[in-house]
């Protein structure tokens, strides 16, 4: 998470806490894109005992999160919504540019109105019938429900909504300015990409044409290839720039698509160095490996590993086949993805240092393999943000080092196993601190 995002979430929590302190009602801000609900510390303390009991039931947390998501996304204007277990929340949707971006949900209450409360009681009974808790649990739930705070509808309308609208307005201004910034970045990167397309196309055509000029000195052809490689590297930076400045947005992503994209991007450079890029990703129970990921960020990290593997490989030749191998297989609850090459190598005492910013392996510092030493630090941060790990090993094979970067990422269990094992997406939506 960027520092900017972190600061924004801190401010969100503070505003939510101020509201909770004034009203003694729990309040959360549901983000439609990330599917995360932010609560303040004080808000969490205001949760009804009934709610806590519901969440403690088997699968209860997942049910509550799903119900909350559905109500938050369905709210078209400020309205009372009845949760799956029989308590009311006030839902206030926040729209920016005509699009729903977030919903404030507060209350967890009964309403002191005969008709409304009858609906709540009926929903509570239906919930108990569906869930079939034990006798003790049922008694505890009934008791807690009967003791849940009950507010007059006038109080909800007159007293509680004023501050809610203040939070809404703040969030609207924040999101609008972020979107404006994102649009500006998109416009700039779009423009860069158009000119870069022209540059790449001309560079490749130049390389193709110079290859035909047999009388031309070899150095001129090599220079043309270096221009093409520079343009390809610039392409990756430009693509990553706009994408990377956006917030993390987690969704199910195919690891295969990420790996294949890295291969596509760097294949030409690999080919020119006589290096074959091999990909072998094992399926998981017969299905392609899927991870809960912020695609643009994870792509950036994998790009970095693949490009490094190619960059730091020794060049191949007809008597010296060289390859970069990207392999993957399930390893318990993780998917293990390795990027392997034959080349420059890394000394064991540098294994931790290379993930620090600004450090370059002592074997890699030369003018033909320029690099700022920051890519791996960023890749590591991205992988850790995905609840994963990255490791390196580099084994001396006499003529070259066999270097392997291994990434462990929690993968999405195939359908039907989510509730039992608790997939990363469910973890992400658990009642937590945002």
């Amino acid at each position, binding site marked *: 998470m960027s520092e900017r995002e972190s600061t924004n979430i801190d401010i969100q929590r503070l505003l939510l806490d101020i509201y909770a302190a004034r009203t003694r009602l729990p309040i959360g801000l549901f983000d439609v894109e990330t599917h995360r609900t932010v609560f303040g510390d004080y808000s969490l303390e205001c949760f009804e005992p009934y709610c806590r009991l519901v969440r403690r039931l088997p699968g209860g947390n997942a049910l509550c999160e799903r119900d909350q998501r559905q109500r938050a996304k369905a709210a078209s204007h400020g309205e009372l919504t009845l949760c799956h277990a029989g308590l009311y929340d006030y839902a206030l949707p926040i729209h920016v540019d005509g699009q729903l971006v977030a919903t404030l949900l507060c209350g967890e209450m009964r309403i002191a109105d005969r008709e409304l409360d009858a609906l709540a009681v009926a929903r509570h009974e239906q919930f108990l019938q569906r869930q079939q808790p034990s006798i003790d649990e049922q008694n505890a739930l009934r008791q807690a429900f009967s003791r849940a705070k009950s507010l007059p509808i006038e109080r909800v309308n007159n007293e509680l909504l004023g501050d809610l609208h203040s939070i809404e307005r703040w969030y609207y201004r924040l999101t609008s300015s972020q979107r404006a910034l994102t649009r500006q970045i998109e416009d700039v990167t779009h423009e860069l*990409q*158009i000119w*870069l*397309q022209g540059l790449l*196309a001309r560079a*490749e055509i130049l390389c193709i044409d110079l290859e035909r000029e047999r009388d031309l000195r070899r150095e001129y052809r090599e220079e043309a290839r270096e221009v093409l490689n520079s343009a390809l590297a610039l392409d990756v930076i430009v693509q990553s720039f706009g*994408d990377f400045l956006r917030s993390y947005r987690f969704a199910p992503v195919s690891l295969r698509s990420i790996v294949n994209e890295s291969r596509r991007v760097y294949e*030409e450079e690999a080919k020119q160095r006589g290096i074959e890029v091999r990909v072998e990703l094992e399926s998981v129970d017969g299905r392609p490996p899927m991870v809960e990921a912020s695609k643009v960020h994870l792509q950036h990290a994998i790009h970095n590993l693949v490009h490094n593997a190619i960059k730091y490989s020794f060049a191949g030749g007809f008597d010296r086949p060289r390859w970069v191998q990207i392999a993957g297989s399930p390893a318990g609850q993780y998917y293990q993805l390795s990027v392997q090459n034959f080349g420059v190598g890394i000394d064991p005492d540098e294994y931790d240092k290379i993930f620090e910013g600004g450090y370059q392996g002592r074997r890699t510092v030369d003018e033909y393999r320029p690099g700022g030493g920051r890519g791996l630090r960023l890749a590591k941060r991205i992988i850790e943000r995905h609840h994963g790990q990255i490791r390196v090993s580099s084994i001396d094979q006499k003529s070259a080092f066999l270097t392997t970067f291994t990434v462990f990422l929690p993968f999405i269990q195939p359908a039907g196993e989510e509730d039992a094992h608790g997939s990363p997406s469910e973890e992400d939506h658990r009642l937590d601190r945002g």
Partner: protein
Amino acid sequence: MDPQARKTIVWIEDDSPIIAPVVVPLEREGHHVERVRTAKEALDKLEALRTCDLILLDIFVPVGGAPGDFGRYVGLHLLRRLRETHAIKTPVVVLSVLTNSRVHDDLEKLDVSAILRKPILPSQLKVAVEQALGID
């Protein structure tokens, strides 16, 4: 090249003067690439779109009125209109700086043969277009 193997490609792209070399390998192979710069111009050439062998489409083309009149994803709306209103079944390859996955999903529903991300190497574009045309 065998004259029968030569294809006609209509390229809907407003930046074609800047990125013209990206189709050079296709032209050197003998294919004819006709350039169209706006959505309006494309709709004025429906017959050409219906009878050509392939349409190469950028999602971010201008509508075709005043300068800079880009709506969001005009190319996507144009393609929808070609498919649904005018029943044009010509194979389409999308070549764009597109990153939005929702638009990506919409494009796939409109029966595109390939979605290629700019920037792309001319050699890669040639391979993708020839695959879409069924040329080995």
